[in-house]
């Protein structure tokens, strides 16, 4: 297990370097010259040149990239051009709520998707099955913000059941109510695909020999479904969650913006709208890194669920 994780981390290094390089390039191609920004719009060319030298912007690109990696490794991501706070500090404040939101979404979506998918498979051809299939097709076709708008309008505003703006605090400090609607909105992206895949996977497994054996030896039907069918169906589902991580991250950006959730996604959108490049770069980098980490976790989980992978 241990060496495997180390190997997977090492394998993801090129992707990590690539992400860093693209983020580094982001600041290079941005329309405003950083030296000019520091010097001010009407500075003399000599002054701008001096500042450029001072900031190390006249060095070869590769040297600057090395320097950039070095600084990122030390947690130095520059300062926000709007709030003048260090970007690392801003990210540290916002990453918690984003992780909380994503975990919340998965906690809601994965069990719900599994239950719906299993139900549909077990009651194949019934109205339950048809409803689940229709729901999952509709689910993957809904814009995230539409789900959010509906929840805000009905659950939040008209029925006045749950808060729908901002975050009142961490879950363990009474923040749960404010998390539910955003998490449900984000989770809605996942429920459909998970239910659909679980249905297919369970159907496949239910036809397998070992399930017949389990039944033949007199196991209760619930045990057959939970221990034999569902356990094996989990493998493709975990992969799916990994593949859907991109949608989850993208959805998080939209969800945070809608619900004024103080996360990295909202930080990124706000920074781009205000042309705060260092903050935008830092936020985009963190989100891309988060994506790499999710994929890593999925790989490891995969081994836990399917020991055959390790041997291969």
């Amino acid at each position, binding site marked *: 297990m241990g060496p495997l994780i180390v190997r997977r981390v090492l394998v993801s290094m090129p992707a990590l370097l690539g992400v860093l390089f693209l983020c580094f390039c982001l600041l290079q191609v941005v329309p405003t010259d950083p030296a000019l920004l520091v010097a001010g719009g009407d500075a003399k060319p000599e002054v701008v040149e001096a500042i450029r030298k001072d900031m190390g912007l006249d060095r070869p690109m590769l040297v600057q990239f090395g320097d950039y990696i070095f600084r990122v490794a030390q947690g130095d991501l520059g300062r926000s051009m709007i709030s003048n706070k260090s970007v690392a500090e801003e990210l540290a404040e916002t990453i918690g709520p984003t992780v909380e939101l994503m975990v919340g979404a998965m906690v809601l979506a994965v069990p719900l998707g599994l239950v719906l998918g299993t139900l549909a498979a077990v009651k194949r051809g019934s109205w339950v099955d048809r409803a689940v299939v229709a729901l999952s097709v509709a689910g993957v076709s809904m*814009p995230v913000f539409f789900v959010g708008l509906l929840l805000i309008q009905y659950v939040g505003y008209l029925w006045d059941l749950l808060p729908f703006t901002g975050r009142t605090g961490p879950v363990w400090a009474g923040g749960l109510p404010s998390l539910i609607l955003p998490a449900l909105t984000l989770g809605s992206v996942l429920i459909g695909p998970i239910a659909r895949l679980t249905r297919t996977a369970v159907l496949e497994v239910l036809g397998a020999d070992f399930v017949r054996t389990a039944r033949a030896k007199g196991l209760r039907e619930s045990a057959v479904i939970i221990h034999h069918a569902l356990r094996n169906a989990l493998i493709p589902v975990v992969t799916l969650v990994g593949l859907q991580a*991109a949608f989850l991250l993208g959805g998080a950006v939209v969800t945070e913006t809608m619900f004024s959730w103080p996360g990295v996604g909202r930080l990124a959108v706000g920074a*781009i709208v205000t042309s705060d490049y260092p903050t935008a770069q830092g936020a985009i980098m963190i989100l891309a890194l988060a994506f790499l980490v999710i994929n890593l976790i999925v790989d490891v989980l995969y081994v836990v669920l399917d020991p055959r992978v390790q041997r291969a």
Partner: protein
Amino acid sequence: MTTLSSPPAAMPAALPTTAAPATPEAAAPRRAGLIARLARDRIALCAAVVLAVIVLAALLAPWISPYDPYFTDLGAAMQPPSAAHWFGTDNTGRDMLSRVLYGTRNTLMMGLAGVLFGGVLGAALGIVAAFYKRVDPWIMRVVDILLAFPAILIGLAVAAILGSGLTAVIVALVVSTVPDVARVARGAAVGVMGQEFMEAGRAVGLSNRALIWRYLTLNCVSTIAVFMTLRFGQVILVGSALGFLGMGAQPPEAELGMMASQGRDFLFMAPHIATVPSLAIFAIVLAANLLGDAVRDVLDPRLQQ
């Protein structure tokens, strides 16, 4: 990164490719039956009709719009749907039906441009990677790195560089489509490369260009096309999400995602301003997804999960 999330079953690139026909040009008769077979599928037929109506309405927007989509009339602001304004009016009294028609035009154009340009570029990369073994690892490594950026992030990055606008969103959609298509195309092309007719073509002295065009590309086209059809709905979703975030078309221009975002500010007073464009996106994506699924089932059953 994604290369190592190991299970081949759900990964497009590792899927078995379309059974390549014995001769390079043998794919034609199969396609002739496509329309007929799709027409027998009731859901696909409905989806196709809905999509056709939406596309037609978008194309004809300048002629069929009942009002000028930019004409504001503050006296008639935030009216609910009525006989005069079928979809109501927005916060500045503009006719929602006309704006949705124009918005659909922009949204569809954005999605189509993203899928087409991204698809062609990605297909070219994938096919070149499969044909020239030497560049293969390099291309695929770049593709893997690009895959580490979720589409919305690419959108944010592009908007940061180019400034918000439809162009930024289209560039982002193209960039995010390329790596996925490249993987699928390479997967399909590698399968075709192993076929005997490729060797035969080489043996009779065909140039690389002819081999790539007439033998390799033609036989990958259906797999790539199916994948692009399936992607269309997603691309629209990502594009309208970017519009919703304010990275896309800028007001007063109409684009469905952006319109939904504008309506958000008036959600409690006039819910239809946000709901109508959101429903329009939902309808487009749902129809596209259903049709995509049906096309896949007919053309390339093995792409199924």
